[in-house]
């Protein structure tokens, strides 16, 4: 294998404690897109929270596989099929180790949205009697409660609304404090005897809030409820050990962690995944099939019906190796430093309001803000004109925005390749947005 599949081209497993600006500058060479220009300006990419950019290690791993070993996995006995299957399963083991899981607990999905839906529809299938005796533990109905929170991405809210509607269970919500943290009192009062599932994000994609997962797990498990963790904004940005966190299911997306689009992960505790009824059914997930019925493979294959996203999974494993070579604690620290710079910079500007926890508390490396008198869309356009890419809108979290009395915010999100200079370019441009739109002169 070419050496760069193993890690950053420019910085072989660095040992220095913090990811310094010089090292960040150097590793940017691994990301060809970061050298792009937009409208004549160097691209300042502050939208990694939506989708991250991919290093050469990932592009090359995908390219190399497709050129030399491409074949369907777990089918056929020719050499390419065997090589592809081995690499596909190696990728699973790589991603598993990255999050403290066992390989058979990693289900490849299209993205986090699909992963969460697999749990919701699996529970739904169990609730109508599918999956036999061992699936009965998942069955829910009228009188049972599903708990979600006010900060959820729609991907971790709507599947539970739908599950409640299909089963007759009710959906209950833990609301937010003004500082964007979950209401402690409600956590304790809403999670109760009737609770069967608690769905919560680890890190909010809008506020940056880090939720108290350990406490939620303790509350949920005390009443026999399952915890489904939306780890989309944590796994890419900080060390995460799903087993140590104690949750029951977790979901994340490859494209937010330097990997390709089209691949995500559902993690579940082994005994749960083996008992949860499958959702998509068809080829590759069965043991024996008659014209009347079928027996299903254990996890993860029971959730991987049909021809799989092999190249994407291999690309994701390359992304994970890249992240491991840099070190997730260093990634977290780097983003924390950038978030502080962002927060302090924005707070120093007149007429700006930041949503979410202040600098100094543990939070994700992103900042969402409202500019007095200028709509988020217009702010985004003004930034784009200078080559600065941010996300504007409700970021798939309408209830959260409603909670704070706004329909749209401007979000700048960082990653390991983001520089202080980019943060400053953003702040600089932001400083003139109100005068440009004649709100202040």
């Amino acid at each position, binding site marked *: 294998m070419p050496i760069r599949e193993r890690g950053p081209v420019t910085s072989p497993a660095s040992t220095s404690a913090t990811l310094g600006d010089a090292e960040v500058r150097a590793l940017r060479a691994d990301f060809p897109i970061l050298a792009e220009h937009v409208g004549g300006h160097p691209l300042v990419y502050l939208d990694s929270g939506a989708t991250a950019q991919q290093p050469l290690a990932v592009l090359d791993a995908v390219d190399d596989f497709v050129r030399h070993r491409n074949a369907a996995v777990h089918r056929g006995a020719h050499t390419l099929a065997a090589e592809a299957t081995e690499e596909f399963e190696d990728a699973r083991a790589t991603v598993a180790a990255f999050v403290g899981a066992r390989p058979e607990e990693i289900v490849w999905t299209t993205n986090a949205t699909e992963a969460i839906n697999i749990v919701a529809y699996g529970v739904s299938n169990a609730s109508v009697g599918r999956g036999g005796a061992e699936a009965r533990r998942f069955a829910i109905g009228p009188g049972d409660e599903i708990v979600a929170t006010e900060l959820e991405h729609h991907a971790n809210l709507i599947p539970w609304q739908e599950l409640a509607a299909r089963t007759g269970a009710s959906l209950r919500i833990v609301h937010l404090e003004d500082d964007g943290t979950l209401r402690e009192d409600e956590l304790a009062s809403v999670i109760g005897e009737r609770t069967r599932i608690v769905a919560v994000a680890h890190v909010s994609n809008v506020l940056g809030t880090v939720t108290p997962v350990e406490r939620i797990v303790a509350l949920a498990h005390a009443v026999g409820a399952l915890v489904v963790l939306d780890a989309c904004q944590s796994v890419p940005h900080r060390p995460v050990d799903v087993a140590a966190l104690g949750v029951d299911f977790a979901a994340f997306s490859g494209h937010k962690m330097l990997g390709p689009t089209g691949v995500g992960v559902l993690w579940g505790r082994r005994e749960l995944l083996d008992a949860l009824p499958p959702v998509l059914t068809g080829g590759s997930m069965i043991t024996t099939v008659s014209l009347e019925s079928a027996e299903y493979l254990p996890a993860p294959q029971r959730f991987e019906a049909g021809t799989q996203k092999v190249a994407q999974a291999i690309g994701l494993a390359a992304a994970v190796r890249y992240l491991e070579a840099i070190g997730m604690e260093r990634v977290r620290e780097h983003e924390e430093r950038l978030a502080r710079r962002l927060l302090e910079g924005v707070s120093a500007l007149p007429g700006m309001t930041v949503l979410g926890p202040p600098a100094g508390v543990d939070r994700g490396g992103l900042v969402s803000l409202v500019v007095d008198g200028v709509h*988020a*869309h217009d702010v985004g356009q003004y930034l784009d004109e200078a080559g600065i890419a941010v996300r504007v*809108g409700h970021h798939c979290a309408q209830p959260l925005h409603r909670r704070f009395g706004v329909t749209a915010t401007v979000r700048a999100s960082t990653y390991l390749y983001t520089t202080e200079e980019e943060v400053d370019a953003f702040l600089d441009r932001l400083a003139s947005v109100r005068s440009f739109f004649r709100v202040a002169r």
Partner: protein
Amino acid sequence: MTGGLDQLYGDLIVDHAERRVGAGLLEDPDVRSHQVNPTCGDEIWLDLAVDPERPDAVHIAWEGHGCLISQGSASMLAELLDGAPRAELPARIAAVREMLHSRGTIAGDEDVLGDAVALAGVSRYVARVKCAMLAWVALEDAVARLP
């Protein structure tokens, strides 16, 4: 204003977004259309009421929140078409749509579109065409449902 943004945020658009001609819903509309731009959550409510004295003409009023483009566009629509003959509305809507989808190739006829010709620059910004169309889509929906 500078460079390309000048074309997008022309003075007329900004001015209309501030003046909000026709803003404020009707007490008793014949039809109300509610439209949302799902990418940003911007919304508009647009009311139509047939003029009791001139049954071929309609009154238009609207309310909403959103970016300068969507608000300016709604204001231009109301200024241009409040009291206009019903039969004329589909052609006006079609003309705006054609201009906005033209990627800068169709300037728009001021006799047909009034101040809304200033929206021509928006057509170069594909991501913003929806913002400019929001009020016109609401009008189209309302006209189709007018008894």
